[in-house]
């Protein structure tokens, strides 16, 4: 079973690193397979940035995603461009203070997180990508939390490891409590774990 994920935002938000962490968690720390490809404009900062990750239990052939099962968007431009491509019934994860969602494909389960603000609370806006990864882990249950945590620790410079792990926990907790709240409110459709649906 293949899971196709697209992560998109603007350059400088750490889109590629977020995708690499997710792929690494599956390929290295869970022993499965992952392929990440990326597309970027010539700008190092401020341009559009998008990465594609495919997760699988078997070796992956076709390297690009066709229609993402999961879309993580961190900019309005990326949202406008990629939300229409989301697979029906797919999962949409947004940086809720940067992306306003007007339309989405039928059956989309959408989850928002104020990742930039949460990152700022930790003192460094730049870790918003890892907040997003933590939140992704909690709302999708697609990858073991410990594998994601290990992948975060393994992907950042030693000096910023602690900060990034805090960011991961912050995003994860935000997601876990959101799921808990939805469950209490009886929104069972929303909280179906991704794996159980497949």
């Amino acid at each position, binding site marked *: 079973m293949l899971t196709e994920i697209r992560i998109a935002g603007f350059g400088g938000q750490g889109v590629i690193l977020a995708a690499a962490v997710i792929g690494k968690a599956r390929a290295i720390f869970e022993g499965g397979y992952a*392929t990440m*490809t990326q*597309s*970027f404009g*010539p700008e190092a900062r401020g341009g559009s940035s998008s990465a594609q990750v495919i997760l699988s239990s078997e070796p992956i052939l076709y*390297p690009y995603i066709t229609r993402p099962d999961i879309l993580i968007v961190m900019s309005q431009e990326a949202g406008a461009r990629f939300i229409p491509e989301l697979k029906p019934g797919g999962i949409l994860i947004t940086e809720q203070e940067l992306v306003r969602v007007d339309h989405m494909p039928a059956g989309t389960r959408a989850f928002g997180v104020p990742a930039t603000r949460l990152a700022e609370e930790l003192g460094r806006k730049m870790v918003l990508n890892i907040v997003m990864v933590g939140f992704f882990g909690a709302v999708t249950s697609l990858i073991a939390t410990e594998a994601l945590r290990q992948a975060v620790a393994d992907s950042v410079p030693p000096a910023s490891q602690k900060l990034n792990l805090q960011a991961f926990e912050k995003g994860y907790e935000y997601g876990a409590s959101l799921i808990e709240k939805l469950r209490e409110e009886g929104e069972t459709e929303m909280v179906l774990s991704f794996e159980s649906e497949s």
Partner: protein
Amino acid sequence: MEDELAASITIQGAVWGGAKAFTVTSGPGFSLMMEHIGYAAMTETPCVFVDVQRGGPSTGLPTLPAQADMMQARWGSHGDYGIIALCPNSPQECFDLAITAFNLSEEFRVPVMLMLDECVGHMTEKVIIPDAAAIDVYPRRFTHLPPGEFRLFEPREDKVPDMVRAGDGYRFHVTGLTHDERGYPSMNVDTQRSSVTRLLEKLQPFTGERALSETADLEDAEVVVVSYGITSRVAQRAIDLARQKGVRAGKFRIISAWPFPEKHIAALAPKVKAMVVPELNLGQMVHEVERAAAGRCKVRLVPHAGGTVHNPEAILKAILEAAE
């Protein structure tokens, strides 16, 4: 270094100084390196050139894939010469074939091209790196002869000469001019014929027994997809889909693209209805497939101008049509 012209010759200075060396580029940079690919071929300097192919011509598509430098890799420098080109299709193979590239460059004393494309070049996947002790390394063919007896370009039985390095007392001479076995310029018809012929003949094993390829489902195949690099992964999906539809499709993945594995393709051609050749260009290696198949089966190109990879459906359609 200051530019690709410099990088592509600095590595050769380093090789004659005793090091192993390689350089990496894409698109226009590869064009700039052509002069020294010829120099490496002529002076039999073992070195590795990595080209991450992007859309062209000129500046083209700097961050998007193509496979349109394949003919340039083979023919880009002036004159007659041979090179080896390898086409990895994953980060793991980039690692493994980089080692192979160095080994082959030392064994045959040729420049070896590692022909990636942007998709593989920017791809992130799991790579298993073995212990250094477990990696086979082909050592440089240093001569065992003393300075008085050694001739720098005198070939051994395999048509490849042994080597020395600067500073070891051999007082040797290397030139890009046509040279005799001493390495001295010798611009006459006989030396030109024998030395240039040898540059090509020493690579003959790669047209057959030394060719690197990956095959699957060839036993019963009626249509064979001949592909290389990233396109081979896309093609596999099309092959699987064709099999599901009852068409017996098979895979011939070229790993060593140059010298072209013509003996393998020639042997396969009479056994199949057609060969389908998808590539991220408007027709390059397909000409080699046609030449080797020599009319004994249909050969069908699935072109793509580059910028992304093929849609597997396009390859599937070609397979289904070829099977009719």
